[in-house]
């Protein structure tokens, strides 16, 4: 056809074909782009205004750590209504069991209303994501507390990271002030089931074994021995707990520690 209208032009045929493919290709790309354009628009964040709290007033400094992290770290808060607010600067105060948020726009540390929080997570300085849930504790000194979730499941392993201010040998602080009190860890570990409630657990082998049936205790010992796990701290305890869960050895909830 092209040769009839353009005799001798050997370049016209391939160019015409190519251009057709090009035109159709461009048309298809345009069609796809127009249908995708709506998805590219990022959703507005309607939730940042929903953080409510009071100004955080710093308290006296003593020896020891009263916060989970040294500084404010990135985290996510899930409010009671299920609204998730990400990219917040958070810091958990273990001494007062409070969640602090640094509002960079108004340069203020805010103590978020505990009643409004369902759960929160923050990434600590080591890059580990720490998940906390607000739950009602019905044991000694009942009330709403933030529990760190060490292992989730039907029976969850929780820790209440309470720090207390206690008497200690006299020392000089950074300002050369004489002090006789320091922050001490008073962590409490619990097994938790939503129906059966809390059961305290200690971080030792005896306490761990007591949570399993006598018939399973031999297998528990064997798994710990084979994996060379010595229950001496929180990390080894969590590791053992996860290992037992993965081997389908389930605890008997309600037994005495």
């Amino acid at each position: 056809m092209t040769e009839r209208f353009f005799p001798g032009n050997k370049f016209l045929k391939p160019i015409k074909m190519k251009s057709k493919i090009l035109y159709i290709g461009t048309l298809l790309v345009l069609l796809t782009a127009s249908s995708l354009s709506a998805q590219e628009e990022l959703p507005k964040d309607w939730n940042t205004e929903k953080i409510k709290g009071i100004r955080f007033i710093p308290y006296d400094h003593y020896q020891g750590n009263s916060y989970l992290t040294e500084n404010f770290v990135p985290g996510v808060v899930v409010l009671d209504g299920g609204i998730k607010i990400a990219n917040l600067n958070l810091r958990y105060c273990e001494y007062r069991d409070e969640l602090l948020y640094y509002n960079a726009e108004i340069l203020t540390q805010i103590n978020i209303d505990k009643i409004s929080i369902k759960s929160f997570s923050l990434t600590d300085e080591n890059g580990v994501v720490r998940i906390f849930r607000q739950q009602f504790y019905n044991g000694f000194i009942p009330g709403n507390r933030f529990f760190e979730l060490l292992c989730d499941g039907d029976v969850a392993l929780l820790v209440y990271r309470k720090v207390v201010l206690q008497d200690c040998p006299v020392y000089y602080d950074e300002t050369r002030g004489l002090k006789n009190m320091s922050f001490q860890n008073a962590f409490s570990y619990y097994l938790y089931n939503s129906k059966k409630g809390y059961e305290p657990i200690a971080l030792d082998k005896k306490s761990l074994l007591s949570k399993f049936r006598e018939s399973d205790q031999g297998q528990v010992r064997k798994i710990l021995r084979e994996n060379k796990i010595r229950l001496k701290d929180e990390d080894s305890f969590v590791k053992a707990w996860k290992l037992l869960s993965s081997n389908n050895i389930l605890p008997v909830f309600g037994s005495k520690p």
Partner: protein
Amino acid sequence: MVGIKSELKVERKLLTILLLLTALLGRAQVTDTFGLFTDRDLYASGEFILIKVFTPTSVPSGIVGIDLVSSTGNKVTAAFLEVKDQQADGFIELPDSLSSGTYLLRSSTRTGTAQTWKELYIANRFKGLPESNAFPRLSAGDPAQGINVQTIQLEGIEKAYSRKANGHFLLRLPPEIAIQKDNSLSVCISREVQGYHTHSFPVIVDKKSDPSIGNDGTIIEGTILDQETAHPFKNAVVMLSVPDSVPGFKYCTTGENGRFIFKLTNYYGKIPVVVQCYDPEKKRLLKIVRSNPENFSASLPTLVNQEFSADLLKMIAKNIESANYRKIFQQQELVIRPKPVALAEKYPFWGVPSQVIYPKLFIDLPNFDEISRELLPLVKFRSYNRNPTLQVFNVQRNNFFSDQPLLLLNGVPVRDLNDIKEMGTREIDRIEIAQSERFNGNLRFPGVVAISNRKLDCSRIKESDELIKLTLDAVQPPYAINPPLEHPGKEPDLRQVLLWQPSLKPEQTMEINFRTSDIRGSFKITIRGKGNDGKIFSGEQIFEAN
């Protein structure tokens, strides 16, 4: 020649692919429309339009807006229906003052491009028959629905029933419909108007709103202007309050374009709303300008004039008569069931109060100055030289805040203290005080004094350029039609809709019961539903009531 042939083959293939793609895209847009149905096509003013909507597959949940528009494109009224499992049902109450004529019902979502229009005739029940001999009607087009499935069998319907008689029939659905438990069926038995039947017409419009807003909730939007320059004002704080026992509160800060937008969810029925703004630097006076309502005339389908038939005029007269009698006998057509508002918050937005005072328990005090002196500990309200001041004690710092605290009247921030200075103990049920520096997002409140009364009366707060009061139509609450008559033996039963079951779960065999009214004439049984393939099916049968 071989080269030319191969070139033509490739060309044909490419064109075929292109045509197929275009056809597929076009088809997806056309079939993905609303199914919009009403109980009748002919109404009298003051009656209710019962509405059933099957939403496009792209709108499985959210809110569908129903607008009643006059034939000239003026919006009469609207309703917002909650969409569940791709369907919604609700009603529109027709104003008594509506003039006779053709009206259009439109279903749409905030972000979707699909709309469906349906025409109705509404006669004014006071003026009687229309003076004009012609009325506008939608010009012929491609109806959105009306795909009758012959396999829907209606068994046991008699040709005629006597008045006030019980009737029933069996509805047999084909298995492919019955197994779709997520679908819903609507069954309607209403008065049939011979010679006047309307259809719904789908329309595809340009995208209306930002898709990130979503289809749920009620939206309030507008612009904040500088009163002096009339230019959009940046960094204005705009606050929205919903006076309630647990008040709602939202705020936003305007950008370069001065725009603000709020989305209210979990509210039902008509809700009072107060929107106010201020310049945080207290330098400029501002003005709130709400966004203009949508222009309907742009998307209005074409209408052509048609003459009234004798049958239609007769039916209009009968319809007006029935509606008037129902009004005379005060027979309710529809009862709105109050839906308890799901409280989004466990506690008020100003926090858990540190003190709560009930002034009515004390002696009568004539104004707020006296109340603060006698009843409110650590709250200083002083009204010297017509310039009142209010201060709250900061328990965190053990001194008084130098700034004015957040003062609330039934949850609405009050910026002018003169509005409350004359309030005595008789007007106040409860005063809550928060004595710490509170934050709501980026807003700082140096203490809070929240005054409330049971009537939720905010009339003391004056409207201005910086404060507007509105009544918003939120999501429609649940309803029930044809409540039982107070004196069933003595009153005439003038129901024009004998049965309205908008959300029945499909089963292979369903028994439907109804009772005829005192109205003589033809009635139509209409079954509608949406199949798994997104297509709407329907079945119809007519019977007489003598």
